[in-house]
């Protein structure tokens, strides 16, 4: 019992370490990627003993700056809620990672370790619940600040997140129907099957429409460009106007955490999670006849690498999208969500149901 607890703690520590560092790293990626896209150099001045590490220290400098800044709570604000809001935001974004399987079973001696912090039967629902609860951080921040602009920003954010959650949820019903499970690790395992003997049955293959709806809606959930109407850095007064110092930093961190969360969700649901094509627990089985047995450790490492690479590619892609697309107008945002994505998602579910029924009858 004790050992199992320790293993869970170790897994949680591993995920937290990886995710938080990646979020910090994102500030560097954001600066440098945008700089490269716009023919600039990007922040490169922060240095330790004359070493600049390509400007990577700027993230560190930011954090130091934010911690040493004055933490202002407006006089008429609700002190408790004002302080709680950023913690809510970060907490729900971090907790959602618990249900994401980042590798297959690791076998150490007699023990079988699932590389997933919490093995939940309805993991998908859990992740969505946490993602939805993230709205609380936003609306509380707006409400507790006692600032009309902040409240409006919070309302915009809430309206946007709730609208897009519906499209997001319905898009994923198709995926759940195809694989017949809400357990994310089983869902990933089911994606290891081969279609017609050679094509990995990843989500993108069987549910391409759902994938595009998911990515669009999920980007809207992260509240970053092109959907950054709740708060637009320099132009739009958003729900965290009244925040300063590290509390502001936590809202920023939440944005990056949610980007990573969405990237790992997209990987898990549509790109086979830790699956490597043609790799099953006992080794590679190539459709053209080759076989290459691998040990359990190598298999797990392959899985981890596969998951990380896919996730990072998604992070990169989202960042590229963020620096490519202009912002939506609010009416465009709403009509895209309700008149565009929502009906398409419903039609996708209906068509999936019909196709599945026919396949079931044929079998």
């Amino acid at each position, binding site marked *: 019992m004790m050992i199992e607890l320790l293993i869970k703690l170790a897994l949680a520590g591993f995920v937290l370490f990886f995710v938080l560092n990646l979020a910090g790293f994102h500030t560097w990626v954001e600066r440098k*990627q945008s700089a490269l896209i716009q023919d*600039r150099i990007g922040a490169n001045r922060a240095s330790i003993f004359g070493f600049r590490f390509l400007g990577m220290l700027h993230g560190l400098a930011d954090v130091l700056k934010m911690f040493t800044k004055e933490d202002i709570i407006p006089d008429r604000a609700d002190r408790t809620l004002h302080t709680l809001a950023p913690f809510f935001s970060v907490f729900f974004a971090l907790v959602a990672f618990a249900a994401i399987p980042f590798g297959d079973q690791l076998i150490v001696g007699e023990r079988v370790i699932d590389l997933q912090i919490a093995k939940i039967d309805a993991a998908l629902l859990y992740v969505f619940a946490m993602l939805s609860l993230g709205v609380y951080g936003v609306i509380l921040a707006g409400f507790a600040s006692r600032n009309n602009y902040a409240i409006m920003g919070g309302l915009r954010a809430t309206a946007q997140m709730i609208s897009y959650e519906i499209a997001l949820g319905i898009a994923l019903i198709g995926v759940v129907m195809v694989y017949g499970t809400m357990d994310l690790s089983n869902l990933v395992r089911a994606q290891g099957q081969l279609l017609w003997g050679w094509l990995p049955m990843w989500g993108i293959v069987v549910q391409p429409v759902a994938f595009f709806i998911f990515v669009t809606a999920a980007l809207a959930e992260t509240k970053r460009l092109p959907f950054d109407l709740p708060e637009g850095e320099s132009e739009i007064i958003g729900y965290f106007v009244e925040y300063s110092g590290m509390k502001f930093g936590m809202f920023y961190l939440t944005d990056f955490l949610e980007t990573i969360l969405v990237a790992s969700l997209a990987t898990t649901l549509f790109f086979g999670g830790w699956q490597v094509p043609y790799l099953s627990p006992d080794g590679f089985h190539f459709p053209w006849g080759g076989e290459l047995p691998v040990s359990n450790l190598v298999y797990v490492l392959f899985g981890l690498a596969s998951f990380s690479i896919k996730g990072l590619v998604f992070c990169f892609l989202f960042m*590229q999208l963020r620096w490519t697309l202009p912002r939506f107008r609010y009416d465009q945002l709403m009509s895209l969500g309700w008149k565009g994505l929502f009906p398409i998602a419903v039609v996708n579910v209906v068509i999936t149901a019909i196709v599945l029924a026919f396949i079931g009858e044929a079998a």
Partner: protein
Amino acid sequence: MAVKLVRRPELTFWEKLYFPQIYSGMKVTFRHFFRNLFLHIAHRLGRLKGTPASVTIQYPEELRPLMSRYRSRHRLTLRDDGSPRCVGCMLCETVCPARCITIVPGEHPDPHVEKFPERFDLDLGICVYCGYCVEVCPEDAIRMDTGILDLAAYSREAMQLDIHELMDPELRKPVENCSLDFPHRCEITGGEMKGSWGHLGHGD
């Protein structure tokens, strides 16, 4: 009342799909990204130095090339013997719209030269960089071609140039000792140049 109808362009179905538009946008950003990434790496390896990877000019280390007619900090040009070309004719002081120049002329030992400046003070905090002093000078004695742009100081006094700094553009306050070998009014005490700004009616 004249009415002008502005028709907002309707999006075509192709544009409403968003994906083709996103694709073409991503094509641009990806092209820039990978081109610049490749060039940055090549520069690190010492290759393709001729092709810039960014348009950034890293200011304190790199300066933008100046146009030859650019008006930067003033200097007094020198004769071959190192004395100023200025003959103290007061034309620049007279033409200066900002009245930032103060000249006190003195008698030159050479009878062919009428006068020379005992003091030549120029307050950069007042100067408007119009360049009239350069244009008006009959002796080509003052020029604005030092290329010095970083004219910033912590006090107004430091913005007030006197003849030492005008003759040697590299010289900055505080000036330790006077290096001019011709007679001029000069009080350098403790590294600070004290002048006659007060008694010339220019404040202190």
